[in-house]
């Protein structure tokens, strides 16, 4: 039996008095795509940040391919190199060109030579239709292009797990599709992904499993057909109802 790609066990996390995560249990198999849905403030971003060790956790464990990455004394930099994360707000480095954004971490964190890093970056940029932007600065790109660069920047580390936090929320509607297509492509290639999203249509499309996060726990989970067509929990039904009313499903 091989360990799951990611296993979260009994994860609890508070900010001061506010307990955001109250015991999360979740495991992802290799090549599995899991979408996290839930109301704003339900803790989706916090959960992803915990997995990437950007937030210290209060209780529980997180295992990456069997290794406890929340154990004391773990080398957080090494762990993070193997986990990509893409943020809602892109967070590209504004003082660097697209190419420099993408090559920085491979060079400094993985120790690749400049030539190797550039070759790797050029290949990825070409694949996602960004070759002509390689020498531009982020503020000269559209939101969709910036977010695709952010994805490429994460992929350049060749992570075994990709975390996506509402990567289309900051985009104009007409730019959403180009970013979602990139993610579909990654899913088709077998990238293991944990995705927080408000795009229910996309979740239905791309996810192997959908988890509904509510009040700090995963209240309900299952294949997208089941969750969207026949939710069991009243609160899941309520949430999806509101989404339908908002015209997002």
């Amino acid at each position, binding site marked *: 039996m091989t360990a799951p790609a990611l296993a979260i066990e009994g994860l609890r996390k508070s900010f001061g008095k506010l307990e955001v995560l109250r015991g999360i249990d979740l495991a992802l198999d290799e090549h599995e795509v899991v979408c996290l849905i839930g109301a704003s403030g339900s803790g989706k971003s916090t959960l992803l940040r915990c997995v*990437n060790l*950007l937030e210290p956790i209060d209780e529980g464990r997180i295992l990456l391919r069997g290794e406890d990455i929340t154990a004391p004394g773990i080398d957080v*930099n*090494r762990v*993070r*190199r*193997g*986990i*990509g*994360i893409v*943020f809602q*707000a892109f*967070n*590209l*480095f*504004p*003082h660097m060109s697209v190419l420099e954004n993408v090559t*920085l*971490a491979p060079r*400094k*964190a*993985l120790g690749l030579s400049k030539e190797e890093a550039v070759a790797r970056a050029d290949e990825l940029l070409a694949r996602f239709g960004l070759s002509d932007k390689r020498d531009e600065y982020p*503020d*000269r790109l559209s939101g969709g292009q910036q977010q695709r660069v952010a994805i490429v*920047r*994460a992929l350049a*580390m060749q992570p075994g797990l990709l975390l996506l936090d509402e990567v289309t929320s900051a985009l104009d509607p007409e730019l959403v599709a180009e970013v979602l297509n990139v993610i579909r492509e990654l899913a088709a290639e077998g990238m293991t992904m944990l995705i927080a999203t408000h795009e229910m249509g996309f979740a239905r499309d791309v996810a192997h499993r959908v988890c509904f996060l509510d009040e700090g726990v995963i209240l309900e989970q299952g294949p997208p057909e089941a969750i969207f067509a026949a939710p069991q929990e009243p609160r899941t039904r309520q949430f999806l109802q509101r989404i339908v009313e908002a015209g997002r499903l």
Partner: protein
Amino acid sequence: MSTAVFVTVVALSVSNAPGWPDVKQAFFDREVFDDSFPAILEAFLVNVRIFLVAEVFILVLALGLAVLRSLPGPVFFPLRLLATVYADIFRGIPTILVIYILGFGVTALQLPGVPNSPLFWGTVALVVVYTAYVSEVYRAGIESVHPSQEAAARSLGLTRFQALRFVVLPQAVRRVIPPLLNDFIGLQKDTALVALLGVVEAFRQSQIEVAATFNYTPYLATALLFVLITVPLARFTDWLTARDRKRQQAGRLA
């Protein structure tokens, strides 16, 4: 046009003032100017040298101090405290006092192996004082870089130091170049304070010339030199500020 009128009016009223012939005699003596200028110019090179040497040390030390003050967590509390106390003390004490204390106090100790030259200690005093100011400028720059930038860098597996070195500091420094240059205009002027330790720089040299000629024109010559070097620095600062503003507006439109 209105500027020309204004200048003419001021010039006329000054030159019609009852004391003008005496003042003209005392401050605008062409002959004294020509005689004293070469020596003052040579002495002014001392100011320029103090300025350049001090500037290099200030830029480096202040950055170090600012980084110390921005270190997070309880582990670094003593370092943060030390850096804060330093900045508070040396922004509080008048520069002239620091120059006296270091220039006369330390040299009087006659410590073996420690230089005794007033030029050396005058420069050190300027470095000590201006490092405190400039570190505040840097710190404001570091704090203006959004934490999500560091998070993005750390999430890629860069160490805290690498995130600082490649992501936070380049952005911080770029943003504070105009205020930094502003502080350097102040530093350039304050090099004259080193004269108080007996260093013969432009101001001291002009005092010597004044004493010899009983005429104040050498002061004017010195002032002119300081202005000549300040104006390009000031215009350059303006230009950088304007360029940044334009760039930000362009960024917002994009």
